[in-house]
């Protein structure tokens, strides 16, 4: 049976890896990002949008549902980070982070869950960060926005349980992506020492955890967060 997946923030980084990974597994992937993607595949569609734009999100989800008759999986991957001392963090940056990380996740989750509820099946996976349990200084706002996602997932797991929809969260380990490109090596080394496994992870580690949440046999797995690398 053909499966349909939406991945937000699929233009680069982990989102891009996941899009290619699931396309290889014969899943139809609908991706989105603020700008165009150069990913070309017969089973891939890309939308350019701001994930916090309610009307644009509704349009993407409804068009997908209309075209394919369902949405099986949603991966809320889109996220932005700004790592700085709070004294140096303007409110506009705080608003942007919450807008993309929290509001975007909420909008996609709500709209996709409406569609999934009709088929009594759905798998929603959010992305959080080890900055939440580590309470990393310099990442107060980023961690707060991701903590919001984690708690929201736990509550939505209950709201959606009767619809056959699970909601879970994955925290990637330290992965070398654009998100941490400007973080000093010493800081990253210190961070790796705090993980149970003291090395960088790879995007495939994230895909592996997501695979578990997406699996048809994982219908009892909901409201959970997996911190890869161990916290």
């Amino acid at each position: 049976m053909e499966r349909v997946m939406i991945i937000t923030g699929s233009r680069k980084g982990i989102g891009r890896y996941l899009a290619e990974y699931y396309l290889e597994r014969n899943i139809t992937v609908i991706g989105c990002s603020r700008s165009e993607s150069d990913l070309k595949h017969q089973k891939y569609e890309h939308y350019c949008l701001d994930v916090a734009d309610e009307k644009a999100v509704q349009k993407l989800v409804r068009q997908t549902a209309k075209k394919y008759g369902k949405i099986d999986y949603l991966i809320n991957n889109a996220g932005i980070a700004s790592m700085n001392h709070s004294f140096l963090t303007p409110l506009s940056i705080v608003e942007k982070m919450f807008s993309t990380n929290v509001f975007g996740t909420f909008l996609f989750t709500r709209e996709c869950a409406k569609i999934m509820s009709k088929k009594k099946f759905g798998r929603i996976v959010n992305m959080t960060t080890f900055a939440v349990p580590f309470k990393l200084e310099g990442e107060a706002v980023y961690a707060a926005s991701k903590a919001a996602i984690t708690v929201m997932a736990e509550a939505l797991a209950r709201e959606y349980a009767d619809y056959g929809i699970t909601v879970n969260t994955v925290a990637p380990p330290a992965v070398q992506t654009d998100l941490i490109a400007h973080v000093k090596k010493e800081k990253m080394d210190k961070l790796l020492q705090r993980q149970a496994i003291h090395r960088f992870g790879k995007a495939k580690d994230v895909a592996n955890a997501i695979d578990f949440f997406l699996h048809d046999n994982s219908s009892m797995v909901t409201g959970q967060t997996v911190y890869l690398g161990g916290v």
Partner: protein
Amino acid sequence: MEKNEAIQIVIEAVKGYIDDENVPVNAETVLLGNNAVVDSIGLVNLIVDIESALAEKDIEVTLTSEDAMSRRKSPFRSVDTLSDYIIELSA
């Protein structure tokens, strides 16, 4: 959108949701409060079904707006008031 069309969409959605031929559904059918034919979760599901039915007709609206939630008289009171609200949003 004509009022009759909106009423029909809401009636079909209500009938589809409650799935009980013994319960008459018409413009006067109550959806919220005492005598409502659906409970609160039922109303949530109904709203989703109506939004989907409207989307099928290329009418993209969100029924659960801040405006709808803050009105002194809820537009979700009955089939009739909900139909009026749909017409208002789709105008």
